[in-house]
């Protein structure tokens, strides 16, 4: 258990959030089993998050994805009790959030978790540095000290020269960089993102995604990242949780999700994805047979198909997929081509 806890930056168990009067009376009754529409009909309450459980490992980027209204924002706010969960537990960095006192909770927010918001949520009456320094300010860091720290972060997110601008003088992308810097200023162990780039133009969005990838490589934070954009999820996520109507539909690595969608909802989601960018060899290989040539290139099962394609196709021999020194599968040209060219469904 303690070892498991070591591996978990965040653990969520049976989390519920039902909006409405006397919402806490619903859980445990048959009503809780109802779909969202029926529940609303019968009780007037909305079940935004229903019995969600998952864990996030340190340094992992965990993506939560779902259509608008599926409960993502509610879920991520329950993690730090910006929204009070109706039931369930959240353990963050080894501490039970759900039972923490106000003061304890504030302390956690000040030191352990930070959040980046879709609509930035900057203070319009403060300059960029003072926005970035806000978290330090509320926990009582001295002015010179917090300004120096804020300046470092302004530099880190590439806003050098704008530290004395006001938010409304910046473009959307730049404002979100401020939001990012503000979240990082507390040096949190965990970062939460709620659709941080949805309000941005596509080009800027891509920049910002790259920025996150860069920072993640540099800082190695644990992150929970909300998005409704599958490409973003696939690009950033180590693992993805797919939500529908408040419930978990599937949790898995990007490749798992693309390769083995749990149901039609997920399949629909992933149908447009360029599979070669996501699928790993693990999902296209077949079991080795004694007759297979052993001269082809050797690769890890986690290699993405697209990366493997050139080497695989240029070799006359099929690729050998080797995990921990053991041959676990074979990928021949056909398998690659099926993914890259035809983009058709992979036999499970």
């Amino acid at each position, binding site marked *: 258990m303690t070892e498991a806890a070591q591996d978990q930056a965040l653990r969520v168990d049976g989390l519920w959030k039902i909006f409405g009067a006397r919402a806490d009376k619903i859980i445990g009754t048959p009503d809780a089993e109802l779909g969202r529409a029926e529940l609303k009909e019968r009780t007037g309450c909305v079940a935004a998050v229903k019995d969600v459980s998952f864990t996030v490992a340190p340094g992992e980027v965990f993506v939560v994805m779902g259509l608008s209204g599926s409960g993502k924002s509610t879920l991520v706010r329950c993690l730090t009790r910006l929204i009070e969960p109706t039931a369930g537990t959240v353990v963050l960095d080894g501490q039970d959030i759900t039972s923490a006192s106000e003061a304890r909770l504030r302390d956690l927010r000040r030191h352990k978790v930070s959040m980046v918001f879709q609509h930035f949520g900057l*203070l319009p009456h403060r300059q960029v540095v003072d926005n970035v320094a806000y978290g330090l300010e509320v926990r009582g860091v001295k002015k010179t000290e917090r300004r120096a720290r804020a300046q470092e972060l302004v530099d880190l997110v590439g806003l050098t020269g704008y530290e004395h601008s006001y938010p409304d003088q910046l473009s959307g992308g730049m404002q979100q960089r401020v939001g990012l810097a503000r979240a990082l200023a507390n040096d949190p162990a965990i970062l939460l993102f709620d659709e941080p780039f949805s309000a941005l133009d596509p080009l800027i969005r891509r920049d910002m995604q790259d920025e996150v990838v860069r920072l993640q490589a540099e800082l190695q934070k644990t992150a929970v990242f909300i998005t409704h954009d599958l490409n973003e999820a696939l690009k950033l996520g180590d693992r993805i949780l797919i939500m529908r109507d408040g419930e978990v539909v599937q949790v898995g690595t990007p490749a798992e999700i693309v390769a083995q969608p749990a149901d039609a909802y997920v399949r629909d989601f992933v149908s447009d994805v360029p599979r070669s960018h996501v699928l790993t060899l693990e999902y296209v290989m077949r079991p080795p047979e004694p007759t297979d040539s052993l001269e082809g290139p050797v690769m890890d099962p986690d290699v993405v198909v697209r990366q493997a394609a050139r080497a695989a196709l240029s070799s006359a021999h099929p690729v050998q997929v080797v995990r921990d020194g053991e041959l676990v599968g074979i990928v021949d040209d056909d398998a690659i081509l099926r993914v890259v060219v035809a983009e058709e469904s992979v036999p499970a």
Partner: protein
Amino acid sequence: MTATLERPPASAPAPPEAPRTRGPVPRWAWLLGILAAWIVASWIGHGKATLYLPGQGSTDVHEWFTQLKRDLIASRDDNLLMQAVGAVSDLFGGAVEQLQRFVSVDAYPRPVPQIGWLGVLGIAGWVALAVAGWKHAVGTVAALATVGLLGYWNDGMDTLVVTFVSVAICLLIGLPVAVLMGNSRRAYALITPVLDVMQTFPSFVYLAPATLFFGLGAPVAVAVTVVYAVPPVIRVATEGIRGVSETTVEATTSLGQTPWQRLTKVQLPMARRTIIVGVNLTTMAALSMSVIAGFVNSPGLGKPVLRALTAGTNQVGVAFTAGLAIVVIAIMLDRVTTAASERSEVLARSGGTDRRTRWIVLGVAAIAAGVCVVLSRRSLSLADFPDTGVGDTVADAMQRATDWTTDTFSGLTTWLQETTTTLFINPLQDLIASSPWFVTGTALLLVALVLGGRVAALTTLVCLAGIRLTDLWYDAMVTFTSVLVATVFVMVLAALVGVPMARRRMVDRVLRPVLDAAQVMPAFVYLIPVLALFGPGRFTAIVAAVIYAAPVAIKLVADGVKQVSATTVEAATAAGSTPWQLITKVQLPMARSHLVLAANQGLLYVLSMVVIGGLVGGGGLGYDVVLGFSRSEYFGKGLVAGATIVLLGIMVDRVTRRAAARRTTSPSVRSALVIGRSSGLARRGPLV
């Protein structure tokens, strides 16, 4: 706020009105039907069950409240509440007195106040410079000097002192309440109706009892002023706090701020501009109470204004001059606070060098102001405002002008009064007040249902039931009639004047200051000339109400018509519309939401003049309130009459709003109405 975010195009030319799908019977047909039935029923039951009560009559309900007051007086020495209030009122009085000794009352043994007029000008100029900039500093000095020239330096200072103390207390009370309401839905729902009542309840009703609690003069003046003036700042500041972006609050909370930090570092700074707007409204409301407070010996300009009422037609010029001083002060305070709200952002952002120059300028100006203060403490002529005779000249001129007007137009005005009363007021009053009460009640209920839907009808039902219980049904209906007639006049005026204002910049530029002045000129000033022209009666009350309510409605209509997109006007002109067609077919219909808002505000403003109307023969509830104020044995009647006015106000307000909301499809208009709701009762200018 994120200004870089793209906004939707400001006002896309609206598509031509799509034919709305209506029920089988159009609304107007329903209304006509109701009216016809009402007329028939009224004719059958004319004069029966009207619940008429003689002017000097009263009922058990009224007696009960009168007795309540008597008991309160009897117990005043051993009543704990009274003693607590006494302590508070000493505080108010003390604050005013201290300030008075600084600027308006001889600081004995000094033969003059601590600071003479020159010093006051210096300080006022400096403050205006600091909060509002050069232009306003000059304007402020000019305005105060004008007050002095008019001969009302000391009274003007007294008015300012009482206003400032009241506003300070309003902020002390109002801001915490606004914070509470901004953060708690329940508090919002509970307090909002209280604010409605505070603003619509005629102060005449509680003026006399308030003296029991607060004593005479400044303390009671401050107390009643606070009651009347605190709602605007609460409302507006609450809107400001509620308007603070949800995400920003959430984002900053996620960083671990305490509720106090949220308030002081996020909500208040972000709502600052709105809060200053609220301060502006509260200041204007406080100022307008200064005249009413003259009835309980408040120091200030109220006394000379009220003299017009006691000393007769010969003193109209004098009252006008005092009223003019109030207008000057009001416009000064309005401009400075408005500019302050606009500048607060700019100031907060000004960079290093700007800031440095600013501090240097302010430092130098402070020295200048200090020198003024010192000089004004030494020389009598710089302390006592010199008597220039300007005030007398103005008063004489005004007196001659009113005398000439009343002499010249007397015949015409009598004819006008008689015709209007016979043609409009009497038939309408016959229908509304002289029908059996249940006929009128049912008719009003049905009208509310057709115009405003079920919710409006329910509100109407509750209000009418309340009115029935006060035993003042007949008087309420007399008042209601006058209010309706006055509102029609107001709207006609609003269209006649507002449209040209919107179409011609020149007209606007000339008229707007006049309207501003008319809005803050105390009604008592023009009451006597209006009386001299028309004699006492309902028509005179209506004229006074129209003078008071028209400026607001005119401005609203002008703004509405002006707002009609230029593209639409261009398109209509290109299609060959005559100016008349343009006005009637394009501009007025498209400004409909503003027209509705103007009508709503017009109604409420007119209603707030009901008590003043009672002073000039308007009868109805106004007379009852004045009676209650004047004679202790009728206190109860005055009290319930005041409550009845509030009920009428709530009724007309909710029905017009509902009607307006139902008829509009455009979201922008809907939101205008919602905003109107939040500040709908937030009147500016003089009142009753």
